C-alpha cells in the first residue's frame, strides 16, 4: 500500500471538529467517492474527532490518500494522548459513554467505514484508524 498524499490537522478546540469534517470532505471529493460513501466517512471522522477532543483531551487527525491494487482510498488516523480506554469492547457498545458524548461515537463510526482499527493504552492515549476505499 502506498501513501500518495497526507495532511495533519490538530484537534485542540471544538471548531477543529468542523475543520476535520471540511478537510475530509475536500479529500473525499477529490478522490471521487460517491455521495453515500463520502457522507459516511465524514460522519465517522466527526465522531472520532469529537472523541479525541472530549475523551482524549485533544490530539490530531492524520489524513492520507492511499493506493493499493489499483484502488484509491482515504485513511484517517486519530491520535490522542488522553486517559486511554481500558475496555475497548465496552467502548464500542452503543449507548456506552464516559463523558458528555452520546455513546454512538466509536461503534457508530466503525459501522460507517470499510476498515476500522483501534489501539489504546491506559494513561497513554488512543489511536483509531479508519479507511474507506473507492
Amino acid at each position, binding site marked *: 500500500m502506498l501513501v500518495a498524499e497526507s495532511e495533519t490537522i490538530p484537534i485542540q478546540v471544538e471548531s477543529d471538529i468542523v475543520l476535520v469534517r471540511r478537510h475530509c470532505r475536500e479529500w473525499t471529493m477529490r478522490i471521487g467517492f460517491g455521495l453515500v460513501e463520502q457522507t459516511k466517512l465524514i*460522519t465517522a471522522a*466527526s465522531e472520532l474527532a469529537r472523541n479525541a477532543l472530549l475523551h482524549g483531551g485533544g490530539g490530531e487527525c492524520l489524513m492520507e490518500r492511499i493506493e493499493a491494487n489499483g484502488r484509491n482510498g482515504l485513511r484517517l488516523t486519530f491520535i490522542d494522548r488522553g486517559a486511554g480506554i481500558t475496555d475497548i469492547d465496552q467502548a464500542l457498545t452503543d449507548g456506552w459513554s464516559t463523558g458528555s458524548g452520546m455513546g454512538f461515537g466509536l461503534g*457508530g463510526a466503525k459501522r460507517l467505514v470499510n476498515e476500522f482499527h483501534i489501539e489504546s493504552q491506559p494513561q497513554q492515549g488512543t489511536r483509531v484508524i479508519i479507511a474507506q476505499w473507492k
Partner: protein
Amino acid sequence: MTANRIPIMQVGASLLVSIQIELDDQTALQLQDDLTQRVSESGARGILLDVSSVWMIDSFIGRTISDTAAMARLLGAETVVVGVKPEVAITLVELGVPLRGVRTALNMDCAMELLESITSGS
C-alpha cells in the same frame, strides 16, 4: 467558541428555521436554546426545521435535533424536519441515530401540509 445564531421566523402559529450554515456543536445547542425559548414566548404549535442544505448530521447534531423536538413537544409544539438528504438518512440509521420522535417530510409542500394539520388540529 462563540455560537452562530440561526434565524427563527414566525408565520402564524409556526416557527420556521432553515439551517444554511455548517452546524458546529455550539451553534446546534444555541439553536436548541433559541427555539425552546421562542416556542415558550410565542405559544407556537409547530416548528418547521429545514435541513435540505445540511450535508452531514453526526450523533451529536442528530441527538440535539431529537432533544429539541422533545423539548418543544413538552411546550406544546410539534417539530417537522424537512429535506433530509438521502445520504444523510442512510448514514444516520447506520450510525444508530434515527431521529426518533421527530416528524419528517420529504419536501416543503408535504411539510407545510403536515404543519397545517398540526397547528389547526384540535
